[in-house]
């Protein structure tokens, strides 16, 4: 009997707006924290834990949503506040009140300690999505304007010539890029685990698929050392390949990257460069 009564109380608590709000937030946390990391791999989709900064952002959004749901209806809002009010003022809730008075400061203390305790890791920082390219670069003493620059190996290239460029790019890639970026172009080369952040992968829709060939040329030619000061620290170990490859070899490897992944480089609209 007491077990049935306890179950009833639990069900009632779960049906109460306060209980529902708590359950929704707990569910959101479980989905964001564990669901995103572990459910997609069950279906063969790669995933990873959500960074703490993004988890916080998601939870705050969910909290705002829950508060809106609670307070957009007068009855629901009043019901939600009832247990809070009861714990704060009702005489028979003295023990809960005292427990909260101890637990809440403790919780804040633990969180504060977690934030300020000494660590030996580098601090997190904002990183740009893509570094903005300069207006022009000097490639082996020659000035090149980056915006609007097109891959010369594609100009008038029929199937045969494009194939030739692809084969040349493939050779360049295998000889120079595979150790880091991997033979599947997925960023998992033999040396990849030695770098943090790891080498870029090219297969997803978020990397070279978003970029023009001129941008990719600039990144390959200038490497990590040529990254702009804003958005630092980039922590990129990418060499400046202009010291090792010719201009044609770089354009050829760019053709290989796009042909091999199946992505098309971002191209210009008729009025100018592409927009998104």
């Amino acid at each position, binding site marked *: 009997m007491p077990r049935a009564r306890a179950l009833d109380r639990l069900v009632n608590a779960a049906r109460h707006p306060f209980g529902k709000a708590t359950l929704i937030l707990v569910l959101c946390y479980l989905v964001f924290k564990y669901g995103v990391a572990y459910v997609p791999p069950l279906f063969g*989709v*790669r995933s*990873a*834990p*959500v*960074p703490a*900064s*993004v988890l916080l*952002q*998601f939870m705050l*959004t*969910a909290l705002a*949503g829950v508060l*809106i*749901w609670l*307070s*957009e*209806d*007068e*009855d629901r809002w009043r019901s939600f506040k009832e247990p809070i009010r009861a714990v704060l003022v009702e005489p028979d809730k003295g023990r809960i009140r005292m427990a909260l008075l101890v637990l809440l400061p403790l919780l804040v203390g633990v969180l504060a300690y977690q934030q300020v305790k000494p660590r030996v*890791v*580098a601090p*997190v*920082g*904002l*990183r*740009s*999505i*893509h570094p*903005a*390219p*300069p*207006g022009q670069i000097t490639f082996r003493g020659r*000035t090149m304007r*980056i*915006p609007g620059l097109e891959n010369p190996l594609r100009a008038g290239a029929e199937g045969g010539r494009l194939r030739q460029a692809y084969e040349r790019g493939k050779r360049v890639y295998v000889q120079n890029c595979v150790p880091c970026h991997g033979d599947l172009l997925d*960023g998992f080369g033999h040396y990849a685990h030695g770098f*943090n*952040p*790891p080498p*870029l*992968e090219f297969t*997803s*829709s*978020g*990397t070279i*698929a*978003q970029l023009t060939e*001129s941008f990719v040329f600039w990144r390959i030619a200038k490497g990590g050392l040529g990254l702009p000061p*804003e*958005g630092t620290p980039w922590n990129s170990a990418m060499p400046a390949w202009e010291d090792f490859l010719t201009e044609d070899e770089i354009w050829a490897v760019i053709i290989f990257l796009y042909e091999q992944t199946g*992505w*098309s480089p*971002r191209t210009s*609209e008729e009025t*100018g*460069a*592409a*927009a*998104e």
Partner: protein
Amino acid sequence: MLAALAALLLSLPDVALAQVAARDTAGAYGYFPGIGSRAAVWIVAQLHLMFAAFVLGVPIFAMVAEAIGMAGGDKRYDRLAKEFTRLLLVAYSATAIWGALLVFTLSSLYPRFWGYLTQVFSVSMWIYAALFFVESFTLYLYYYGWDIWKEGAAKLWHLGLGVLLNVVGTAVMFIADGWLTYMMTPPASVRPETAPGTVGVWTAIANATWMPINIHRTIANVVFGGSIVAAYAAYRFMAARNEEERQHYDWMGYVGNFIAISALIVLPFAGYWLGREIYAYNEQLGITMMGGFMSWLWIVQAILIGVLFLAANYYLWVGMARIPGAERFRPYTKWMLIILVGGVIVWATPHTMIATREELVAMGGSHHPFLGVFGVMSAKNTAVNLMILTTFLSFLVYRRANSRPVVSWAKTATWVQGAIFATAAAIVVFYGVYGYFVPAIVRIGFSVYQVLAVLATIVSVTVLDIFLVRGAESRGAIRWGEMPERSQYALFILAVTFTWLMGLMGFARSGIRQHWHVFEVMRDTSPWAATPALGYAAQIISVCVLIFLGLVGFVFWLTSLVEKPVPAALGVAPVARVEPRFAPGSTGE
């Protein structure tokens, strides 16, 4: 020999640039104590812009309100319009003062750059000043003639003055837009060596981003005007001394919010066009803005616009409790909320995440392998379009709440409306998903289909609804004044968020020029040429927002000094400060 050496030196770009910089810096810049010249000009320009948006947005609001009052015979709209036109008199002075300050700071702190601009735009500056005169005096006529020209044809003439005021005001803004857009996207024919006096005024004004900015700002001004009106109403609602005031300001808050959100719904489309033109003009500008160091501002923007959508919908949903008949729609609000919250989460998911080194290793880079799909424009366009559709649905439900259509085809029309919504949502989702499988250039075109689907829905459903509720029976009068006070904070949030967003995104647009006064034409060689960090920029903008809101509060207070005390005049008993009397589901008329 010397000539050869000089030629050699000039052929080295860096050396030549250094020479130009040294030459340009001499006498080119003044000094402002404490905060530096850039911050001084920034603050003054930002405040001038905020007041300008206020005095351009509120007249649109007043004119529309007056026209609605004339068409429907509802005197409340006329009172509302006049109340806000009175605010404009003081606000115009503030705008002019900040404008004059901007000219003084520019001419004293950036004399060479200011000289350059005046050489290019001198003719338009004279026209600008002349139009400002016309605008000011039209405003005086519009306000002081309100009670004289209030009946019949005279009222129509008065409304004509309101139209003229808005046309001239918009023309003034368009001219100023020409100056600032020239700094960002000067015509390709203008080079560093081009003498400013030889640049045609029209060529300079009609640059690549002029019209997108014009449209974006015009719509944004309506949003801004509406939100300030709503915030004013919220304050007056909470400070109401009697029931009549409470009802009036509750209604005013609703009207302000309605106009603000109606315009907000189309604002992202105009912003998208502007962004697209910036990319089309110069890839470097585009990447700096969206993918480079300004990219985090877009995450902030997504969060803030998410706040706007949530606050606006919240206000409507809470307001439905005072509408008899609205209870039949209440069960659906939670589903709309889920779409909105989901939309905010997707829209604000960064492509490149803030992560510790361990988290970076786990993700295999700074892009999350699964959530990364939310970081690109396909997902974000889909999210924002669904949020717009949802907000429009909220408005529709609110509008229909107390109506009982009497036309025989009412049920069919409601089903058709539902089908239009479903089709639009399907189109938005389809192109959002399909966008991942096509090249970028094709994907960009998909956003146009998404936008068209949403706009077509808004137009067709609204037109259908107008005919549907024509002559409809009322389920009971709206109980104006019966709003919980927490709903009014949503209106404050809207106004503050709009103001803050204006400053932040204005910085994003202006800051992408980086170390150029005029992009790739006139270099900024001052000590403040470096683009400021986002944190510093946010602090400056926040200070501007606080100053602006403080001054607007002062303007509100100032104009309230001439108000007649309503309770004495109407003999209405003061309202008791209690919770609203309504309960959901009650019909309580």
